[in-house]
């Protein structure tokens, strides 16, 4: 089963990389002979594949091995009960324990499928929070559509997508009774950063209306999804992302270091035209060292992963905001594009496109795997989370 999961994950990654890889190799984004372009693309993709392989191994050492000892109905139920709210975990264990008493393939499948239904849709004490949240989300989306459509039509798609995604994921968190805002400080920090990014976009488009050309529908939706995704990660993070406070805050520090170094570098690259070099070689070591340090101190690969994830979250938001504002300063001082000091007809639009690629795509796709490699290097302890014993409310002999 481990091999199957590994091949599925790597195959999925290959599909994700293949299309943009083929596009960039054939459309002239990468220069040089075809063989060189393929090699460059493979080097770009390699850390992701290696990191994915490491993550599958870590998962296998955690819950994967336990799943492999089960038959298919038990695996189905184990996955379904994993989605239950924390307040229902006792019932999750109850249904899984009861399945061990069911004999016969058909009876086991029937029990597992029905119990999975109860696990995915457990009864709710009060539907009021869900209804209230849904109503708030709907009103917010409509209000955003109307207000932004009047005030800044070029941002309407971005704003509505952002509001809809943020609202939908909030609704999901409320419906699953997941704890919202487990770390108020972190949520506030990310919230301010997301607000800053949105404010920077609005400010840039007000100063340079032609730059709206950069926010064509697909890019506008992508940026909205990324920003809302970062926000929701901070507001309702998976439990695994909150396990180590040290990992979390060092990750935030990694993000700040990335932003600070980027800001410093723009002071130099204006004269050296080496923005590309910084983005290619600058962020990786920061993530690698941060995750390596935390994994070594905590003795845990998973802690290193948390550092990399939070570093990518905070770093991407800060650097995106800085990129937009610095682009404006460069244009006003007569310089070219932030990334390579080139001059093109619609400078601000090109800067926005570069910011979207280098920060919202490159940082997560390149730096996150590099961070995971750093975590793997020093987190020799690959132990997954120990399986939780069934809660014992009382111990009773039913006889």
């Amino acid at each position, binding site marked *: 089963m481990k091999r199957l999961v590994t091949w599925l994950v790597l195959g999925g990654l290959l599909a994700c990389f293949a299309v943009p890889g083929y596009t960039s190799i054939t459309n002239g984004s990468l220069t040089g002979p075809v063989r060189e372009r393929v090699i460059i693309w493979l080097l770009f993709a390699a850390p992701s594949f290696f990191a994915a392989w490491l993550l599958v191994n870590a998962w296998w050492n955690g819950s994967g091995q336990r799943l492999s000892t089960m038959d298919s109905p038990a695996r189905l139920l184990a996955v379904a009960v994993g989605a239950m709210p924390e307040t229902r975990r006792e019932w999750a264990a109850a249904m899984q324990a009861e399945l061990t008493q069911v004999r016969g393939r058909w009876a086991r499948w029937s029990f597992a499928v029905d*119990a999975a239904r109860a696990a995915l849709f457990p009864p709710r004490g009060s539907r009021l929070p869900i209804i209230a949240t849904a109503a708030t989300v709907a009103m917010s989306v409509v209000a955003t559509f109307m207000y932004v459509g009047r005030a800044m039509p070029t941002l309407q798609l971005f704003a509505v997508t952002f509001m809809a995604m943020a609202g939908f994921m909030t609704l999901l968190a409320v419906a699953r009774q997941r704890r919202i805002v487990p770390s108020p400080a972190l949520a506030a920090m990310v919230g301010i950063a997301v607000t800053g990014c949105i404010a920077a976009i609005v400010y840039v488009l007000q100063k340079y209306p032609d730059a709206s050309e950069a926010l064509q529908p697909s890019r506008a939706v992508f940026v909205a999804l990324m920003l809302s995704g970062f926000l929701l990660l901070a507001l309702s993070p998976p439990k695994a992302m909150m396990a180590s406070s040290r990992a979390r805050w060092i990750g935030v520090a990694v993000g700040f270091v990335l932003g600070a170094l980027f800001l410093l570098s723009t002071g130099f690259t204006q004269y050296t035209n080496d923005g590309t070099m910084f983005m290619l070689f600058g962020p990786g070591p920061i993530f690698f060292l941060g995750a390596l340090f935390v994994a070594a101190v905590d003795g845990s690969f998973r802690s290193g992963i948390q550092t990399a994830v939070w570093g990518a979250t905070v770093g991407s938001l800060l650097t995106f905001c800085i990129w937009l504002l610095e682009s404006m300063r460069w244009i006003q001082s007569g310089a070219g594009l932030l990334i390579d000091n080139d001059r093109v007809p619609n400078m601000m639009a090109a800067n926005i496109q570069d910011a979207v690629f280098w920060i919202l795509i490159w940082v997560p796709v390149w730096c996150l795997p590099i961070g995971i490699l750093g975590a793997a290097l020093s987190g020799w302890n690959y132990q997954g989370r120990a399986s939780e014993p069934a809660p014992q409310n009382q111990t009773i002999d039913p006889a």
Partner: protein
Amino acid sequence: MARTRRPSEQTTAVVLALAEAPATWRYGYELCRQLALKAGSMYTILMRLSDRGLVETAWETDTPPGRPARHLYRLTGPGIALATEMAQAAITTSKPAVAELRARWEGA
């Protein structure tokens, strides 16, 4: 004012089945087979009854090696009172299965 809703036929059947022997702990799968209820319905009903304090839960002790402890259920005091009301109501509804359960409970 607390919101009240008439319990479903399935919920009534579960409550009356537990009321047959109120002091006895019952297993979930055992109740499923007795009442021919699917596991999804049974556990949803048990969760609701537990949330409302009508059913208490426990984990069995003395578990045979190699299998996990099973979850156990029985009615609480308010649950037994509810069973009484349901049994009374079942007289007027003429539902054979529920009436049978009521008869068995009253005879216990």
